[in-house]
C-alpha cells in the first residue's frame, strides 16, 4: 500500500518526499479536526455530569 503510494507519486524522491509529508499532514489534520471529535464522546473518560440516566 505504502509502496504503491510512493510509486504513484510523481517526481524524483525529493518531490515524492514533500508530497508524502503533505499527504501525512492532511490525514493528521483530517483526523484531528473531524474524526476524533466525533468519536471522543464515546470514550469512557469524558463524562463529568450526574444525570438521571447515569451517563
Amino acid at each position: 500500500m505504502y509502496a504503491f503510494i510512493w510509486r504513484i507519486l510523481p517526481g524524483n524522491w525529493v518531490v515524492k518526499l514533500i508530497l508524502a509529508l503533505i499527504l501525512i499532514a492532511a490525514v493528521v489534520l483530517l483526523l484531528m479536526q473531524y474524526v476524533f471529535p466525533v468519536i471522543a464522546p464515546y470514550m469512557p473518560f469524558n463524562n463529568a455530569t450526574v444525570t438521571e440516566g447515569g451517563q
Partner: protein
Amino acid sequence: MVNSSSSGNEPGVNPPSRPTIRPAQRRQAPSDYGDQQLGHSADQSAGGSGAGGDQPLPSRRELRRREAEAAAAQGEPTAVYSDAPPVYEQPHPTHAQATQAMPAVPQSAPNAAQNAGGATGNEYAAAPQQGGHAAHGHLGEDQHQPQAAPQPQGRPQTRRQRRRQPVEKEPLGPIRGTVRTFGELCITAGLVLILFVVWQLWWTDIQANRDNEVLADELTQDWANQDPNELPDDPDEPVVSDPVGKNEAFGIFYIPRFGDDYYRTVAEGVDLEPVLNRMGVGRYPNSAMPGEVGNFSIAGHRVTYGKPLNQIANLRPGDEIIVQTKDGFYTYTFRNFDIILPDAVEVLSPVPDAPDFKGKDRILTMTACNPMFSARERYVAYAELTDWTPASDGAPDNIKDSKAYDKVSKNGGA
C-alpha cells in the same frame, strides 16, 4: 521493465540446433550449449561452495572460444557474450571490433539473462541473483545490435561490480501482497490510535485552554460595556446574576488551590459540545445562579479538554472558590466532598442528598468524573457562599494579586 519483456520471449525462440542460427538468434546458442552441459556442470556447482558458479567457467569459456574460432575459420559471423556490467552510454562497437574482442570475453551473461527471464535449471542459478539486472540491461542492447561487444575486463573486478548491482524486485504474488497490505493496515491503525491518544490527552487541552482565554477576554470586555445590576439595600446580600441563554458564558472561576494562574469560564449548560469541551465548566440548567439561595451546580472535565477540575481532589476545607460575574465576585468556601454514582442527581438539589427540603443556604456543587479516565463514579465537591464583593469595589483580596486575575483584568478591562 523493458528488459523483462525482452527476456520473457526467449524460451519460445530457442533455436534447436547451432548450424542454422541466424544473426537475430545467435545469442540464444549458448543456452543450448549450456543445457547440454548441464549434467556435469551442475554436479560441479553443487559440490562447490557459494562460488560454485566459478568452477565450470574456464572449461566452458574455453569451449566457447574454440567454437568461435572454428566458426570464424568457416567465415560465419560469431555471437558475443559478456557478463560485464552494462555501459549504457557506450557507443556500440562495430562488427569488426566485436569479433576481435570476442575471445577474451566471458560468456555468462546470456545464461544470467535467461535465468532471470524464467529459464531455470541451468547451472548459473547463483550468478543472476547478483548480476541479473546487469545482464538484462546488456541483453536489451544486444537485441538491437547483436554484435555489440563490451569492454573486456578482468574477472575479479567484474564479479565485484556485479555484486554491487541492485537486485531487481519481482512483483509480489497475491498472497504476499495481501499479507503485506494487511500488515500495513494494522500498522496504520496502531498509528491512528496513538494519534488519537495524543490528540485526546494533549491537543484538546491546548485547544480548550486557548478557547478559554479568548472567551474570558470577550466576557470581560462585554462586562465593561454593560451596567451592573442594581445593588440590593442590604450590603451583605449578594446580587443574583441574571440567567443567560444556553451555551453562553456568564462567569469566570478562580480557584487559588488549583494554581495562581488558574481561571476558567463558566457557561450555561452541561453538554459536552460546546460547553464542557470548549467553554470551561458548565452550569446545570435549572440550578441556582451565583449568589442565589439554592444550589449553584457546575460540571467540568477532570481530564482532557483543558481539565478545569483536574485537581478537584486537592481541595481542602477552607479553600476559596471565587466566581466573577458581571455583578461582582462571589467567594465560596469549600466544605466537603463526596464520591457518588453517576445517577445520583440528588446532589444537585438545594440541600444536597435531601431533595425534599428547600434550603436557605447558597451552595456551590462541582461534579467531575472519578476515578480519572473512568465514568464509573463522580467526584462531588460542596462549597458555601461566604463572601461577596460588588464589581464596583474591585476584586477581593484573595485573587487581587493573582496572575489569573491580572491576566483577565488586563485583557478585558473589567
